[in-house]
């Protein structure tokens, strides 16, 4: 199925050698032993290449493609100039050349079956599932026009023009009729979603432009399928037998194919959403449903000879909202990563195999006029088509498509693997010049992907096309945006228009009232609000930067830096009444159990500061109210927004906000988070430069195993003793009232009282020990910590000299390495 046609073990051997497959060499050595030693009877070791051949070769190809990707990214310079798709094609050509040189058989080609059944669906599903819906539907009219009219236009003009030139005799003697030309035109006309995505992903044009090109490439599939099928059947019927009825049938079939495909997609999306509503107790296979059901939608519409791409696209588009709400956060992450992985992998393989497939002298038939004219025609007619349609569209569009946009639209019309797969599918018996078509298609694909892909980036820069800007979500922005949505729909209501806003408003109402009720879990229905999401996200960021800020100051004290002039004017001093409610208390309480356990495991490889950093951040992740993050508004296959947990802890959330509110009421807003963060960064950079300070060097590598252990610990302590939020009267306090003595430093260098809730704590002691490590009396160890005898401050006493000395970590390691848990057993381990 991988196009492994005529190929004995030789091909496999060669392949393995190409890959530097050591496995193979090992296998060869084993074989004689097995064969000679026990030629009869039971064989201890046998070599059965044929047995594993197919999957083995597949796995190896996947490996090669993936390794190639790593290779490309070794050089940032190359990947920033040359699109990955072009690199992969070149790699494919090279590999194909090697295989050919050894084998003289084109063993590996991209077969239509593999492409349509296994490589294309993940890419399209990924596109649909991460489709920015609002943008997509907002531009649906434009997209549809380009996809339907544009594609038909391209197919017709290209086919007819080529036929015209053929009649003039410029191409020489070919066995081609008008219908063959139209067939060729129809398969070469469609803009390819895979190629467009691969190239535009790296270009970052503005989102409207992107969604138009991208949407067109997805939705034109129906047109391509119909045109292709119609002309193919016409060709087999023979030009003379085509009647008007057939043409009408063709037009009808377009509507059936496109609407039918969409309908299948929507039905399966409904099914999928409904299923995920009830997967609460089968969390592990939850992500599987997403893939299986959407794949089924693809296969079903393929079975009904409808547009499969449309089906799976709309399945993704329609289900995304409900699925994302229903499945657990972990599953959502799994789905996201798996989808990206499959899509990215499929894309890699497609481009590589496009290159490999080209290395086959048997398919090459050269006709200079035909090839060159095809290239010219598809570019020219694309440009003309775009200009004409845009002229029409701009009369109705609110956001006009400027001439620059039109240039990018025309130039972004990349052809790709879909065209190649379709042309390979042609029946050589009926289409006499199949090979010419195949070679021309390959040239076209290579030209558009490599040349246009390579030049589109400079072009976009040169034309100063509006780029997409990635901004942090802002709460105000979201709120105002929402307000405007409502205002606009109200204005439309009042002025009596049925416009875009009216429809959107109606739809969201319908969705909220009926669809969401049926398709979403009850718990999910609550928390699905974009404004809330952004709010939570920002909250979390605040919290993290707050902790980071606290740490920064703590660490400043820790290295006894007397400089306070560059300190941010932030006061974390908790008011006396809320001391225990501050974030430090919360962190401390939760960290103590974990952190202490962690200490012994991590101290060997990381400085204390970083340990703390991780622990606090981790704690934050575990215990803070988590948003269901809104995904990036622009579709991107290769990038994922950071994941988040789903522990939506309302308690903390409300308390947090009450705190924020209180501090706000007191009208002493003293903190500019951004500036604080900037200062913090600068400080860190400074510290890094200042290499005389031992802990200024932050170890960059993160011991993975340690981290997992920590996670486990966290979970354990979590389950055994759920954090008692009632103890805190206030949760996290981002902005405590600002008192003036902040800037007026304390001589000891520590002036971060958040981390010293107990005022009685000895300041000099704090100066030496980071406050979070000092086990203050407020620390309430978790059950686990109590039973397990947490690592006590004794540990820290032994750490202290290390931290203050300028010795390297290693020297400490030697001293303490072997007995990492020993301190826990020491009876004298008391507070410092």
């Amino acid at each position: 199925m991988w196009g492994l046609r005529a190929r004995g073990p030789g091909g496999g051997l060669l392949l393995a050698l190409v890959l530097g497959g050591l496995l193979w060499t090992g296998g060869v050595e084993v074989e004689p032993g097995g064969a000679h030693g026990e030629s009869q009877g039971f064989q201890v070791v046998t070599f059965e290449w044929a047995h594993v051949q197919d999957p083995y070769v597949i796995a190896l190809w996947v490996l090669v493609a993936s390794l190639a990707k790593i290779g490309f990214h070794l050089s940032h310079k190359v990947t920033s100039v040359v699109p990955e798709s072009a690199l992969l094609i070149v790699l494919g050509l090279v590999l194909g050349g090697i295989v050919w040189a050894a084998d003289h058989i084109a063993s590996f080609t991209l077969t239509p079956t593999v492409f349509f059944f296994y490589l294309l669906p993940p890419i399209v599903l990924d596109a649909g599932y991460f489709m920015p819906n609002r943008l997509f539907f907002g531009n649906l009219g434009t997209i549809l026009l380009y996809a339907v009219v544009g594609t038909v236009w391209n197919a017709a003009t290209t086919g007819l023009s080529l036929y015209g030139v053929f009649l003039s005799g410029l191409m020489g003697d070919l066995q081609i009729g008008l219908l063959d030309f139209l067939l060729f035109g129809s398969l070469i006309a469609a803009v390819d979603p895979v190629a467009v995505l691969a190239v535009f992903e790296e270009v970052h044009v503005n989102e409207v432009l992107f969604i138009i090109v991208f949407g067109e490439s997805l939705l034109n599939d129906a047109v391509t399928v119909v045109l292709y099928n119609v002309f193919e059947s016409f060709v087999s019927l023979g030009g003379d037998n085509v009647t008007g009825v057939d043409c009408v049938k063709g037009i009808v079939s377009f509507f059936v194919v496109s609407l039918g495909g969409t309908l299948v997609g929507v039905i399966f999306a409904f099914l999928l959403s409904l299923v995920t509503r009830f997967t609460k107790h089968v969390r592990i296979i939850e992500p599987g449903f997403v893939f299986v059901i959407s794949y089924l939608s693809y296969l079903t519409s393929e079975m009904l000879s409808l547009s499969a791409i449309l089906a799976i696209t709309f399945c993704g588009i329609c289900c995304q909202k409900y699925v994302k709400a229903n499945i657990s956060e972990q599953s959502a992450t799994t789905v996201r990563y798996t989808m990206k992985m499959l899509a990215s992998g499929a894309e890699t393989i497609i481009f590589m195999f496009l290159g490999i497939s080209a290395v086959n002298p048997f398919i090459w038939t050269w006709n200079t006029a035909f090839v060159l004219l095809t290239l010219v025609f598809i570019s020219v007619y694309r440009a003309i088509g775009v200009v004409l349609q845009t002229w029409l569209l701009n009369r109705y569009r609110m956001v006009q498509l400027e001439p620059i946009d039109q240039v990018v639209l025309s130039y972004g019309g990349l052809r790709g693997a879909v065209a190649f797969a379709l042309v390979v599918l042609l029946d050589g018996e009926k289409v006499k010049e199949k090979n010419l078509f195949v070679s021309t298609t390959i040239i076209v694909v290579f030209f558009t992907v490599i040349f246009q892909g390579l030049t589109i980036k400079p072009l976009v820069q040169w034309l100063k096309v509006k780029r997409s800007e990635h901004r942090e979500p802002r709460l105000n922005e979201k709120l105002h945006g929402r307000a405007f949505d409502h205002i606009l729909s109200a204005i439309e209501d009042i002025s009596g228009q049925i416009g875009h806003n009216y429809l959107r408003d109606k739809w969201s109402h319908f969705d909220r009232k009926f669809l969401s009720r049926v398709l979403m879990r009850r718990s999910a229905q609550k928390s699905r609000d974009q404004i809330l999401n952004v709010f939570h996200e920002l909250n979390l960021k605040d919290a993290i930067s707050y902790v980071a800020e606290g740490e920064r100051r703590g660490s400043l004290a820790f290295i006894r830096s007397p400089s306070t002039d560059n300190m941010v004017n932030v006061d974390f001093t908790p008011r006396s009444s809320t001391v225990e409610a501050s974030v430090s208390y919360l962190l401390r309480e939760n960290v103590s159990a974990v952190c202490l356990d962690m200490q012994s495991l991590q101290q060997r490889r990381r400085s204390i500061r970083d340990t703390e950093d991780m622990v606090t951040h981790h704690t934050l992740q575990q215990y803070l109210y988590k948003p269901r993050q809104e995904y990036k508004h622009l579709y991107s296959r290769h990038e994922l927004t950071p994941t988040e947990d789903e522990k939506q802890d309302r308690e903390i959330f409300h308390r947090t906000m009450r705190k924020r509110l209180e501090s706000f009421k007191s009208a002493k807003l003293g903190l500019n988070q951004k500036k604080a963060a900037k200062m913090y960064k600068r400080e860190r950079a400074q510290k890094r430069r200042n290499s005389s300070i031992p802990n200024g060097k932050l170890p960059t590598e993160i011991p993975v195993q340690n981290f997992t252990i920590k996670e486990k610990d966290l979970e354990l302590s979590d389950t055994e003793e759920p954090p008692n939020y009632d103890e805190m009267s206030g949760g996290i306090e981002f902005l405590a009232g600002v008192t003036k003595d902040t800037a007026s430093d304390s001589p000891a260098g520590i002036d971060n009282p958040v981390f010293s809730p107990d005022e009685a704590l000895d300041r000099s002691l704090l100066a030496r020990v980071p406050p979070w490590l000092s086990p203050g009396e407020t620390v309430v160890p978790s059950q686990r910590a109590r039973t397990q005898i947490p690592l006590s401050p004794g540990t820290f006493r032994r750490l202290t000299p290390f931290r203050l000395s300028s010795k390297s970590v290693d020297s400490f390691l030697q001293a303490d390495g072997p007995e990492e848990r020993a301190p826990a057993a020491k009876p004298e381990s008391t507070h410092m």
Partner: protein
Amino acid sequence: MGAAHSASEEVRELEGKTGFSSDQIEQLHRRFKQLSGDQPTIRKENFNNVPDLELNPIRSKIVRAFFDNRNLRKGPSGLADEINFEDFLTIMSYFRPIDTTMGEEQVELSRKEKLRFLFHMYDSDSDGRITLEEYRNVVEELLSGNPHIEKESARSIADGAMMEAASVCVGQMEPDQVYEGITFEDFLKIWQGIDIETKMHVRFLNMETMALCH
């Protein structure tokens, strides 16, 4: 003056004032009459007849904006009891799409106007500041469409937004400084860099679409 729409003189005058085409004015006038019940003016109650408006969570605020003297350019504060057709058009003209022929300056001006409309909606007591109380009020209404969101969350969101606004607009504040509310200048600052092309425009069609709305 609503009844005098047939006088092309008047229509032309309105065209100049509001920037609508005569077709659009005519159509809006028909709609106006429909809403007012053939009266020369519209009162607040008339808006109750728009069925689709009922679902709008900030409905009252929007209707109020129609009668706001500031939006009508009639005074610094206060509400009008009733508005005539010209006032109606004035309000509608806030949502006209930006003309491609407009110069840079005009675009900026129109953007400001649109933002001012929103600002006035927030600033219900016309003191030139969106105070925390006002902001909360709006957010509560905005989120009232979702029955699952409690009032408290809405309030905290407003608080968060206010703090964000403070940090955007004022930057680092002195310890004693008090952020009283968002002024219009601050409001512009918040919107800085945000593309509003698609957000604040309604395409007023020339076609007859009213048959579908009663």
